[in-house]
């Protein structure tokens, strides 16, 4: 078979390009769901852990207990491979579920949450302590100062790292293929199984991931420049 025939088989025959496109759709959907879960979990975890660390005087017992649980969560998630987590979720915890894509998205979200938590916590800690002191000295309470002063500054600081996490997440969605999630790589595998040709399906998929990542890198750059408005001299 000639190269052009192989490409025809991998991409055009039987409207196979539609399968890739559907895969892209699922990949984006899983990324968005996982990202939303990850950011919510990560932000909540980071805020609680920061509040715990910033306490003065005697420590609040409930906050301390929650902090220990959150620390265990972060340690376990960051300390075990994503692939293993996916298999445990799909074959043990949600063994009876057939919605592999959703289980995959949930797992990715929980996984991402642990990393986002550490990114956001780092961002919150990096804001100069004088900012909190200034807010509190004006009679604003802890939560108001966090909301108007600390968090907006932290967001700007964590955006590059968060963008990086987002890109990692986008590519990690390919892992859910192995628990039966029908995303981009899954489409390629299906075609490979029918044509016995690996090169073009894999190259096409790689190219599609690359294009997606480049688009999002560009969008993130634009967003960051907009946020940097207040630094302009």
């Amino acid at each position, binding site marked *: 078979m000639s190269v052009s025939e192989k490409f025809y088989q991998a991409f055009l025959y039987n409207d196979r390009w539609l399968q890739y496109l559907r895969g892209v759709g699922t990949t984006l959907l899983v990324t968005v769901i996982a990202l939303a879960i990850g950011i919510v979990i990560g932000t909540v975890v980071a805020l609680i852990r920061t509040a715990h660390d910033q306490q*003065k*005087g005697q420590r609040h017992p409930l906050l301390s207990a929650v902090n220990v649980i959150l620390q265990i969560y972060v340690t376990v998630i960051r300390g075990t491979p994503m692939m293993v987590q996916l298999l445990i979720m799909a074959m043990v915890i949600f063994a009876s579920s057939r919605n592999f894509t959703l289980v995959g998205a949930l797992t990715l979200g929980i996984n991402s949450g642990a990393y986002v938590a550490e990114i956001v916590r780092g961002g919150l800690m990096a804001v*100069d302590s*004088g*900012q909190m*002191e*200034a*807010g*509190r*000295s*004006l*009679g*604003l*309470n802890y939560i*108001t100062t966090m909301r*108007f*002063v600390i968090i*907006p*500054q932290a967001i*700007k600081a964590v955006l590059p790292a968060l963008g990086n996490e987002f890109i990692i997440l986008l590519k990690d969605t390919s892992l859910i293929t192995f628990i039966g999630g029908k995303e981009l790589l899954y489409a390629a595998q299906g075609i490979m199984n029918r044509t016995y040709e690996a090169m073009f399906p894999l190259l096409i998929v790689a190219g599609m991931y690359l294009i997606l990542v480049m688009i999002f890198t560009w969008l993130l750059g634009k967003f960051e420049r907009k946020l940097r*408005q*207040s*630094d*302009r*001299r």
Partner: protein
Amino acid sequence: MIDVKGLKKQFDDHMVLDGIDLSVEKGDVICIVGPSGCGKSTFLRCLTHLEEPTGGEIYLDGELITDRQIDDIRARMGMVFQHFNLFPNMTVRKNITLAPVQRKMMTQKEADAEAERLLERIGLLEKADVYPAMLSGGQKQRIAIVRALAMKPDVLLFDEPTSALDPEMVGEVLQLMQDLAREGMTMVVVTHEMGFAREVANRVIFIDEGIIKEDEPPEEFFAHPKNQRLQDFLSKVL
């Protein structure tokens, strides 16, 4: 107005403040001087619980300051920092109006008007809608003072307000502080500006080894220091 009784502050096993007693009356302008590390900044920060005191009591208008009502206390005690601590993510206007609006003292409209009045006073009205990054150090510190004033505080606390400024900008900040003192604002100022202490303060306090070693009107303080450590200190800085 402020009564401090036996205030102690310990960091690990280092006793920074070892029993400070002080009464601040309405209209007082008190300058606190002393060698670095003597605890003068720590004392100021303890007044509004930015540092948790280890012992002793602080009263504001007869009311014991505790952690429970600390936000209300802080709203009445303005604080000006060495490094200004303006909020870089907000315009000058928002910096000034945030606290009065969030504490529901004023509507946004009232706070805006107040901010403009205060900025007009210090000649920086045209900076209302710029971000702090575009201001000089002296401008930042004067706006930080104005931000504290917008809360209409009973007393202003200054923690080395000119120490982080370029020399040519010290004057404009001291001038504003002097104007406020003349208008009867109660002020407690930790400073190395001996000229300001001599000219503007009605009491000068020397803290050393965690206690008040001298508390005199400026004429007496600078002309006839009684404490040996103060004599040494003044001979070095004057």
